[in-house]
C-alpha cells in the first residue's frame, strides 16, 4: 500500500515540477497556462491517488474522490476564463517569428 502511495506521489511530483519549470520557461500567458493545466490534470490527480492509497480505504478516500471530480470540472473553467480574458483584453499570443 505504501509503495503504491510513494510511486503515485513521485509521479505526481514529477509533473508538478515540470509544470513549475514550464511556467518559468514559457514566454507568455497563453503558453504558461498550458503548463498550469499540466499541474491540474495529471500532477494533482496522481498526488491525490497517492494520498488515497496512503490513507487506506475509508471515508477520507471518498472525500478525495469528490475533490478529484470537482478538480476535473472546475479546472478547465478557470483555465478557459483566464485565456478568454487575456484574448479579449487584446493580448497578442507570442509567435515564433517574433524572435
Amino acid at each position, binding site marked *: 500500500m505504501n509503495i503504491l502511495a510513494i510511486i503515485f506521489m513521485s509521479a505526481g511530483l514529477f509533473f508538478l515540477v515540470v509544470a513549475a519549470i514550464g511556467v518559468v520557461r514559457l514566454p*507568455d500567458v497563453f503558453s504558461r497556462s498550458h*503548463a498550469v*493545466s499540466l499541474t491540474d*490534470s495529471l500532477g494533482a490527480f496522481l498526488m491525490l491517488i497517492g494520498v488515497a492509497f496512503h490513507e487506506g480505504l475509508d*471515508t477520507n478516500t*471518498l472525500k478525495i474522490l469528490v475533490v478529484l471530480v470537482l478538480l476535473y470540472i472546475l*479546472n*478547465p*473553467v478557470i483555465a478557459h476564463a483566464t485565456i478568454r480574458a487575456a484574448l479579449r483584453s487584446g493580448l497578442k*499570443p507570442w509567435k515564433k517569428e517574433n524572435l
Partner: protein
Amino acid sequence: MVTRSRPISSEFLFLKTITLFVFWVLFSASFEWVHLGLGLIFSFAVAWLNSGHSPFVPRFRLWLRIFLYIPWLFYEIIRSSLHLSKLILHPALPIDPHLISVESKLHHHAAVVLLGNSITLTPGTITAEVDRNNLIVHAIDKVSGADIVSKQIELKIADIFKDEKPDL
C-alpha cells in the same frame, strides 16, 4: 418571499433529499440519531430551496455514454501530458503557439460544453473563445494542434449525443 417559476414536483424533491442525505451520511460517517436527524432536516431544506431550478430529466443512456467516454479522455490526457512535458524539458524549447479556429458540427449546448472542457483538460490545447459552435483554440505546438484539426474529440462527442434531441 421566494417566487417560483414552476410548481415543486414532489418526486424531484424526494430524489434530491435522498441524494443529499446519502452524501451527508457518507461524509459525516456517524450514525448517531442527532446527526442523522440534522442531516435529514438540512437535506430537505437544501432540496426545497433549490427545487425551482431545473426539471428532473433522467437521461441515463447519455450519462452512461459520457461515463464510458472518460477513460478514453484520460488516455488522451496522459498522452498529451507526456508530450508537453517533453516540450518543456527540451533544452531548445521547440514550441510553436498558434490559434486554431474550429467549427464543430455539434447541435447540443451540453455537447459543445463537453468539447470545450475536454480540449482545455488536455494539456497543450486550451479553448480560448466559444461562440455557439465555433471554437477558437490555443495550441502550444503543431502536434497538439493536430488533435484539434483532426477533430477526433469532436467525433467521439458527436457519437455520445447522436440519439439526443438537438437544441442548438
